[in-house]
């Protein structure tokens, strides 16, 4: 079967398109009767996806302080409830457990490492008085998986050549040494041995992880599941590596080259394509969470790495305005929100600069999405606000600081873990271009400030105690979660 796809990629493509069209038609019909919004939540690991979804669902279901989210603020939302999700093959987002972690234990939930889904049914009254329901499907998937989308258009030989060429660049050669040594001993045309293949895949994965873990990172490279395996850890589809294929020679059946190619195709057809078809192509709205502050905390190099990673990921995005034609044949996200998460680690006076930094990082994706007709917005967001604000009096108008209970081990100071502290995280540069100065080596060296670690410090805080809404219901405090909601689904609740 994979071989058939390999031989006729065009046919495969047509079949794929036809499938999507059929599915869109079915969904379009269904959407007329039961309006549904599929909200994609993505971001690199530790960007705050889990907390975002937990806070969002908690706010919708239990009623939150959402003054800017018009349907809820004006009282038009009668109620929202969790409901069984439509896709039986996808794990459910463990909302209850995460809420308990945040609210009761005042800890941050552990990060999820695979796709998950949750369905919320919102009952509301439209502005003209009719009772309606809107089904909100929240799909949470690791941003790393988006790296795989270009693989759909590459075959094994192309991919292999590309990866090997990249691994020989000076900055990466060191990390790839073990892998290179192993691959050099493999003849792609000789009969395959499973142990050799496994070892090659292991070394290749180690190389990818080393590239990513390196400071500065060397960028993210596909296959994304090697970095974030999800359910497929250890399966043959993830046991392949690029090989040095001889030019113009078709590897015979049973050889290393054929084995690797089969597995690459299997990866593409069993892992990447289903993800694209089942999830990514069906999203109506998308929010991309980016942890800018942690990168700033680690220094300007990390910021540039983050930008590279984001660029790699966002290049795979496919967006466009709905329209009836588009809605019928190519469903795609028509609103995209880029959110700099954990904005509660800054005083609100610095949020504009944070937004500006994120805007610069995602500029390419924004202009492309805007060109494709999607609405794009950039905000600084804290799905759960762990701090309050304070002013430390002193020279030049005082330091705008934040107050909260620092996470254990964050502050190695005389302050201790049990008491609240006030933190001034440091100024963000007003001229953002300082951070992204073309990236050439001399300008990096000349970069004045914030290049060094320690010029900016984003302390992690423990989750806050609950606050009360206007109706006296306990709610999680947040920053601009309501604005995000208004942007993402407000227009569907009119």
């Amino acid at each position, binding site marked *: 079967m994979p071989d058939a796809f390999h031989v006729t990629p065009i046919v495969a493509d047509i079949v794929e398109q036809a499938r999507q069209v059929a599915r869109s038609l079915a969904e379009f019909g269904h959407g007329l009767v039961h309006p549904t919004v599929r909200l994609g939540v993505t971001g690199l690991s530790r960007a705050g996806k889990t907390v975002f979804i937990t806070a969002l669902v908690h706010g919708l279901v239990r009623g939150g302080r959402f003054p800017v989210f018009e349907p809820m603020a004006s009282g038009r939302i009668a109620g929202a409830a969790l409901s069984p999700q439509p896709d039986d093959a996808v794990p459910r987002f463990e909302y209850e457990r995460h809420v308990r972690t945040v609210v009761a234990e005042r800890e941050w939930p552990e990060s999820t490492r695979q796709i998950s889904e949750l369905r919320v049914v919102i009952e509301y009254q439209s502005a003209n008085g009719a009772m309606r329901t809107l089904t909100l499907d929240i799909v949470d998937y690791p941003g790393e998986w988006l790296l795989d989308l270009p693989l759909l258009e590459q075959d094994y030989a192309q991919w292999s050549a590309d990866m090997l060429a990249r691994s020989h660049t000076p900055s990466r050669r060191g990390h790839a040494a073990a892998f290179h040594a192993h691959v050099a001993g493999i003849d792609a045309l000789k009969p395959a041995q499973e142990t050799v293949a496994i070892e090659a895949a292991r070394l290749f994965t180690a190389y990818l992880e080393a590239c990513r873990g390196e400071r500065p990172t060397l960028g993210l490279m596909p296959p994304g599941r090697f970095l974030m395996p999800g359910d497929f850890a250890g399966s043959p589809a993830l046991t392949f590596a690029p090989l040095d294929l001889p030019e113009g020679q078709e590897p015979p059946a049973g050889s290393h080259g054929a084995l690797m190619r089969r597995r690459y195709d299997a990866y593409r057809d069993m892992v990447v394509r289903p993800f694209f078809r089942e999830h990514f192509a069906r999203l109506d709205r998308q929010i991309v969470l980016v942890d800018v502050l942690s990168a700033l905390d680690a220094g300007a190099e990390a910021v540039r790495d983050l930008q590279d990673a984001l660029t790699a990921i966002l290049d795979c995005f496919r967006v466009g305005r709905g329209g009836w034609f588009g809605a019928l044949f190519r469903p795609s996200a028509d609103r995209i929100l880029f959110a700099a998460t954990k904005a509660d680690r800054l005083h609100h006076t610095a949020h504009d600069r944070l937004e500006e930094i994120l805007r610069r990082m995602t500029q390419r994706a924004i202009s492309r999405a805007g060109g494709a007709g999607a609405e794009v917005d950039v905000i600084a967001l804290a799905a759960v606000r762990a701090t*309050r604000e304070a002013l430390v009096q002193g020279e030049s108008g005082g330091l705008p600081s934040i107050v909260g209970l620092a996470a254990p081990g964050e502050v190695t100071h005389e302050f201790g873990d049990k008491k609240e502290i*006030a*933190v001034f995280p440091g100024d963000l540069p007003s001229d953002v271009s300082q951070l992204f100065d073309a990236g050439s080596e001399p300008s990096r060296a000349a970069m004045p400030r914030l290049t060094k670690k320690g010029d900016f410090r984003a302390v992690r805080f423990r989750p806050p105690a609950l606050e009360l809404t206007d109706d006296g219901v306990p709610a999680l405090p947040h920053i601009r979660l309501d604005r995000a909601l208004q942007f993402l689904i407000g227009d569907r609740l009119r």
Partner: protein
Amino acid sequence: MSEPLRKPAVFSLDDPRVVVAGREEQPAEAASSIDQGAQAEHLSAAPARRVWRWPWGALFWSALSGLVLLALSLAVTRFVEDLFARAPWLGALGLALALLAGAALLAVILREAIGLARLATVEHLRERAAAVIASDDRESGRALVADMIALTRGIPQLARARTRLAGHRADIIDGRDLVRLAERELLAPLDHEARRLVLAASKRVSVVTAISPRVGLDLVFVLINALSLIRKLAVLYGGRPGALGVLALFRRVMAHLAVTGGVALTDSVLQQLIGHGLAARLSARLGEGMVNGLLTARLGLLAIDLVRPLPFCALPRPTLNELAGSLLRSAEPDPAGDGRDRRDGPKSQ
């Protein structure tokens, strides 16, 4: 090209320099900013807007009224002197009455001036709101919300909305959203009421025109009704215009009406023609009444635009079609009025 960036720092909460922005401390800070804002506004509002030209008209009227006032005071002085000549107690009484009248005149003038200043404040607020919506600036948004709360302090049905809004002041909300929030919270009930006022006024006008015995009378009524509608709308939205303020507003409404008349005519001409045609078939006077009613409605809508302290952004602007719709609907199921109208018509002519 950059200001020095300050280094991160950590403080204990016991440090006396740390001032936590708590809920109890927030209003005080906000209140002071209201005062400042309000003062700044009173200072800056009056000369802010107009392109300055030599005010010949104003000069003429001021000089003339000064003359009249002088003549009047001269006459009064003479009269009081005469009274003193006749009998001292009469003179004292006259003097007391004259002083009383003078004091009352002063008070009236003062009130008018305050009314005008308040109208200017409202207008200035609207301009600021438009600027905040454009710039999305958080600090000016906060100041604007504080001023809105101060402006609507005299409107009792907004007490709850005001507390809700004040409760959100500590939240981190951006400028544009703040303005929208203030509009939704504070102005939604007022808009509703304004719509009702305009509709009621135009209904009244259409009925009175339809049954008025003389052509001149209904014109007078339309005028008086329009003035009272403008005054009511201004009061509703937190302005307290005196007679001068109402006249100034009326003048501006009429100017707008002249400018936008053509535009409005095209967008609602169908409605009007249908309304007129239908009603005219029933009775020529009823049709006239309908037209006058619609005119009043349009005037009311323009007045809303002028006296509303925020531009329409989050809430829908009331449209003439929607009002005309209710006006027509209210005319239709009322055949009794129509019958009476027909009976009245011939009798009066």
